[in-house]
């Protein structure tokens, strides 16, 4: 055994070495997508599929919104999964453009509301949308759990950003799942309530997740 305490410390690390499987981006994504699919399947199994989807004549607005949320979920999950493997100089900015694209939905809803208010016309925000928000958050928790599990195995260097990305991915996954069931077609409902799922989950992830993924 070496005399120098530092050499002893290193010798202990070497003695403690066990084979490890490198964290692979593909495995992390498979986990996240499986969680997303599970959440969507559970929600549809319990509440059913939208009639137009079930009939094979999907409403364009809803289909587009669901697609946007799905792409945002995948892009954010990709960035969150990648953050488990640290490295100075790595660029993980692609999700930001997707988030900007997704922001068009609530942005348009708020813009329309502004126009209505400008012309002294009443703006109605369906209070029943709270159910969509709740269901989206609940369903998104499955994806969130998968991503937290992955990040805890990894070494994210920016805990808040990793938490926010996991939250955005989970919120978008929840919004996508809700889109498969929610009977509403209008932009105001989708932009406000489904969009809020992403915002709420992203903020919650940023503020609450660091303590779960610290290393």
């Amino acid at each position, binding site marked *: 055994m070496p005399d120098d305490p530092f050499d002893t410390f*290193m010798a202990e690390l070497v003695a403690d*070495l*066990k*084979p490890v499987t490198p964290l692979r981006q593909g495995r992390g994504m498979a986990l996240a997508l499986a969680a997303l699919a599970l959440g969507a399947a559970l929600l549809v199994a319990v509440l059913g599929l939208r009639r137009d989807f079930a009939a094979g004549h999907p409403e364009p607005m809803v289909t587009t919104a669901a697609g946007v949320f799905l792409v945002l979920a995948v892009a954010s999950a990709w960035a969150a999964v990648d953050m488990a*493997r640290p*490295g100075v*100089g790595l660029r993980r900015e692609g999700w930001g453009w997707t988030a900007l694209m997704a922001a068009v939905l609530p942005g348009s809803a708020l813009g329309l509301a502004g126009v209505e208010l400008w012309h002294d016309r009443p703006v109605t925000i369906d209070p029943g949308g709270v159910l969509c928000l709740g269901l989206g958050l609940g369903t998104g928790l499955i994806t969130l759990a998968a991503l937290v599990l992955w990040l805890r195995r990894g*070494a994210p*260097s*920016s805990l808040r950003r990793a938490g926010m990305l996991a939250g955005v991915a989970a919120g978008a996954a929840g919004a996508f799942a809700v889109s498969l069931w929610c009977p509403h077609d209008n932009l105001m409902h989708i932009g406000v309530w489904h969009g809020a799922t992403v915002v709420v989950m992203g903020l919650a992830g940023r503020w609450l997740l660091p303590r779960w993924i610290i290393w």
Partner: protein
Amino acid sequence: MTVDDASLARLAALAQQGDRQAYAALLAACRSWLLRYLRRRVSPEALDDLVQETLLSVHRKLATYDPARPVIPWLAAIARYRFVDHLRVTYRAAGEVELDDEAVSGEDEEEAVTARLSLDRLFEALPEAQSRAIALVRIEGLSIAEASASTGQSESLVKVNIHRGLKRLAALIESA
């Protein structure tokens, strides 16, 4: 001990498979690199502890090394993370210290990579007031009052600058 990144990558990949000889060589190379990397921004009294903490993180998070990527940026990210964590918890622990002003510079490739990834780059991304407040209080071990007198900032402002600077450093670990 100086090992090129291709050799480090081979050692890290072998270590992930459980090869202890390769792992011992990897740790020795990492230790040597970390001592040079951290010495300009860490007091000599704290340097060994921080290198040990970083190596422990390397040990615990060995699976996060991607064999398709170079080792040094991975090691630097872990070192920066531990360094920022060290700044958070260290407060006058080392007293007044003399920092080694010898720049981490050189002409070979490894030195150039080190310079690109250096902690100075991290500090350069901070506003001057935040960088100075952190350096004086969390690295050189001055009290808030002493730092306030040295910089002309009020004591509250020194505290705010440290708080904001540390948050910003944490966010910049991979990007600066």
